[in-house]
């Protein structure tokens, strides 16, 4: 496991100075008005515009994105140029599935720790509504052969080989949400750990209803100051996450059918995260940059930890990533003032909490490093989570970091953790502190 507690002591501190995100837009029928780069620009330019330094001062731009559009390869570079960071500002895009936004922040963190950069714009974006439909492999093969058949008889023969089923599109989003190693959809992995820790349907629905309830209250109390409104070309504006429902109750949620394991399952569309479009951007700075520009950091990003586990139990990723992180910093669960655990699925978050409560499970997996205990609900996802707000996969990691920092600031408390599970069987966790 990560040895280098000592090495980390000598590294330069890194501050989360500010951040902004777009509203998360629930994917409806068809692609949304805004592309990934549009959303990135909307959040990024508002963020940069309120800084005391010019965009050219940014040393690099790092973005996380799982499925950029076909005209958006290395979307970070497009963002750097369109945001006015200048032609000489390098930029790259990272992909760690649901944690891509957090991975981008981690890359920024390391660059500043090492002394490579002073100011980094990092974040994530996803427009899941823009996920493409692909032609089937059979169809692509057929088109290739058609293009190479030059004569009329050859073309007629090719026409004879065309089959209706060739036209059935491959839905990239569904493929992306299915683990190709174990052949399970993400929802089914949640079913597996729900079963393992005996999470009931009612518990999951209660958790989901609470997520909406908290998100709604937070909207009403203006706790989403990180959101930058979006304007379209038809006189509409969107100033809040569009997936939050005021009518989400346990009773109504109970009526939904299981979405992944028919009939007997626990996981429904109502107690899962939503498919959304959105971007979240963070500004990370070294101590030099903070004093040079007289910045007021939200929090210090102390450390980030990655971990991996059985892809069939990917939902327990937060436990696997957070445990060594806390152990290294000699912290217990109760030392963390606020938590953001991504709500991929209600049952999955509840399974994580159950795992931490289960001393023998922790002992078995983490041995001497085990950290066990209870996370109080009033310290967890206080303003709702992905079940209500949405989960644009590339963006979520950055959103969690930003929001936990803002909650720490609001509550004037010290420590926060943002953590998420990652499709393919990984977990990521970040520790933030305010002085």
């Amino acid at each position: 496991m990560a040895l280098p507690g000592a090495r980390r002591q000598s590294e330069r501190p890194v501050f989360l100075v500010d951040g902004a995100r777009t509203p998360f837009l629930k994917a409806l029928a068809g692609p949304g008005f805004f592309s990934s780069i549009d959303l990135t620009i909307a959040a990024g330019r508002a963020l940069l515009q309120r800084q005391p330094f010019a965009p050219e001062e940014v040393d690099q731009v790092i973005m996380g994105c799982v499925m950029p559009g076909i005209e958006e390869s290395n979307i970070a570079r497009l963002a750097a140029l369109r945001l006015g960071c200048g032609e000489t500002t390098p930029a790259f895009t990272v992909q760690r599935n649901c944690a891509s936004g957090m991975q981008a922040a981690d890359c920024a963190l390391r660059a500043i720790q090492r002394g490579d950069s002073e100011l980094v714009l990092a974040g994530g974006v996803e427009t899941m509504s823009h996920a493409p439909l692909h032609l089937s492999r059979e169809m692509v093969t057929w088109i290739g052969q058609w293009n190479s058949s030059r004569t009329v008889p050859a073309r007629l023969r090719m026409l004879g080989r065309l089959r209706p089923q060739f036209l059935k599109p491959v839905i990239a989003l569904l493929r992306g949400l299915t683990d190709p190693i174990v052949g399970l959809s993400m929802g089914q992995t949640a079913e597996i750990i729900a079963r393992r820790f005996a999470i009931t349907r009612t518990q999951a629905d209660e958790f989901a209803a609470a997520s909406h309830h908290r998100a709604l209250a937070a909207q009403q109390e203006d706790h989403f100051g990180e959101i930058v409104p979006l304007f379209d070309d038809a006189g509409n504006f969107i100033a809040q996450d569009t997936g939050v429902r005021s009518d989400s109750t346990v009773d109504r949620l109970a009526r939904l059918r299981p979405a992944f394991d028919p009939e007997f399952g626990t996981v429904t569309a109502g107690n899962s995260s939503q498919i959304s479009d959105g971007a979240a951007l963070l500004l990370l700075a070294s101590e030099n940059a903070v004093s040079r520009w007289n910045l007021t950091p939200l929090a210090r990003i102390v450390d980030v930890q990655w971990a991996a586990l059985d892809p069939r139990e990917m939902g327990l990723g937060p436990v696997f990533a957070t445990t060594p992180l806390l152990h290294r910093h000699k912290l217990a669960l109760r030392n963390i003032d606020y938590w953001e655990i991504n709500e991929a699925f209600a049952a999955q978050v509840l399974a994580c909490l159950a795992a931490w409560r289960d001393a023998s499970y922790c002992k078995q997996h983490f041995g001497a490093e085990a950290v066990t205990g209870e996370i109080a609900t009033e310290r967890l996802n206080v303003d709702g989570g992905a079940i209500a707000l949405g989960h644009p996969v590339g963006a979520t990691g950055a959103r969690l970091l930003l929001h936990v920092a803002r909650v720490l600031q609001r509550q004037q408390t010290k420590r926060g953790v943002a953590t998420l599970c990652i499709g393919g069987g990984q977990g990521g966790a970040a520790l933030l502190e305010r002085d």
Partner: protein
Amino acid sequence: MTEQNWRNWRIRIDDGNIAWLLLDVAEQKVNVLSSDTIDELRAVLDQVQTDRPRGVVIASGKSSGFAAGADISEFVPPPPAAQVGARLAIIHEQFDRLARLSVPTVALIRGFCLGGGLELALACRYRVAAKDDPATRLGFPEVQLGLHPGAGGTWRSVQACGPLAAMNLMLTGHTIDASKAERIGLIDRAVPERHLETAARRFIQGESRPHRPPLLARLTGIGVARPVLAEVLRRQVRKQANPEHYPAPHALVELWRQHGGSARTMLRAERESFAQLLQSPQSQQLVRLFRIQERLKEAGRSERFSAPRVHVIGAGTMGGDIAAWCALRGCRVTLQDRGAKYLAPAFERAHKLYRQRIRDPRARQQTLDRLMPDLAGNGADRADIVIEAIVEDRDIKRALFAELEPRLQPEALLASNTSSIPLEQLAEGLSDPSRLVGLHFFNPVASMRLVEIISGRDTAATAANRAAAFAVFLDRLPVPVRSSPGFLINRILLPYMLEALHLVTDGVPAPVIDQTMRRFGMPLGPVELADTVGLDVCLSVARILTAQFGGEVPAILEQKVVQGRLGKKTQRGFYEYRNGRIVTAATSGASGRDAEITDRLLLRLLNEALACLREQVVADADLVDAGMVFGTGFAPFRGGPMAYLRSRGADELRARLHELSAGWGAGFRPDAGWDDPRLWQHQQEGPNE
């Protein structure tokens, strides 16, 4: 390699024996085809005929562009027709020689190529132009000066691209880019800038094939097709422009109809027609206005203020459209209002404007990226200019300024788009009132070119100059105005509109009044104008201005407002509207009262204009004319109200005022300004009237 230099031309013969002939007109920032330049062309062509190079490439020696048209200053005042004819004959002779050179000739076009410059290019055998340079535009703007091409362009453009495309180009005066020019056959090849020289060489070496106009375009020009097509064109032009107001387009169609079959007669007729148009009062006024525009733009060059950061507060019709326009012109703009719902309509209008104006989707994206919503108002902290366009309320504006001022950059300009509140009142409470300037745009911002630059008592000259430079950067025309109620345009326009409403009260139907003034040359009649502006707005301006300057608000205006009939925006005002169009049945034909109506309306306007000049609201009569033409669309071919005054004669008009004041009251009492001829006489060297 040999070189030879003249004053305005240079020839360099390269290793391949190609002559590169560079046009670089002395003592000019842009190439204009002055008489001097044309006279030298004779010697240049003599030289070419002696040297017998393999081919000639004509290009610009300036970075600013290929060539603009003729040197307009040579036409002011217009020389006698015979002299013009003689001048044109020389140009034609040299261009014909160029066209008949035995070696191939190529015009290499980078940057603008307009009017006479395009005619020079058309006299070459081939033309290549840069397609990736937005400054490369080709066209015949002569019609905007009441003229048509006069250096062979009417013949050669039709030969190059067929009558329809050529006529379209010459009749509209619009410019086109290289790709479009290639499509219609005006040039042979549109290439990326990096290949211009190579392309020119290939044409001379005979390795590139010239562009041919499409078959249909060639057919429409010959034999029986011409009179038919000419008739169609004639009808279209008649619909677009009244021949009494704008004779040039009609003359152009007629020229082609009669002589389009023969180069020799068409070229001769072109010279005669051009010389004749040049003498017309309409053209003289349009040329004069063009020169006033140049003067206004020149005034905006005393300060550098390009692509500033702009912060606009208030996203209503004016604020939102000003912000969108600034971004279109290249400024980085933040647009602030109290809530997202106030910003959203402004972004919708901006999207619409950009769809209309910007064809390249990437350029459109970049423009949208420059226009940023800013609910928190952070943009003010770093802006070079902050434009206030919030509600017309003195106290609210003052409160805003008080909050704003400490956050501004030390050099930042503070501008208000107020249309009625004196600047001195807004400046009260500012710790540095010298930076406050009025920047009064007109609606719709994207099409009204006038901006009143208003200086209050404390406004620093540099602030006003910077505001003017900013307006020029925005491709608007800055008219410096001293702060006083209504400033210039609203103050002059209001008595005219109110008088129209008095006429309505007296029983003259609104359509009769409006049609009379359209026949005079206004784009919109005064009653329609009132409906378009909004009767509530008219009433509030009327109250402010009548309180200041006397006169009475017509009761009918108050009634309409009380009834909630506010004009176009409520579908009902003096007219009824459906989908923004008048549905009330229009009466047609002359009323027989044209002269009376015109005099009553215009004399009120002129009387107020003289009052403004007497009070030195603006410096001279040309500014009044420019303001009214570019701010309200006042009949451009008449040269504006002061030019109209001069053409009618001050004595006659004053006599009419006395007559009218007997019947229609104090509004017609001649202003003291009528006694001072210096006020209404023109300041520039202008046409003799």
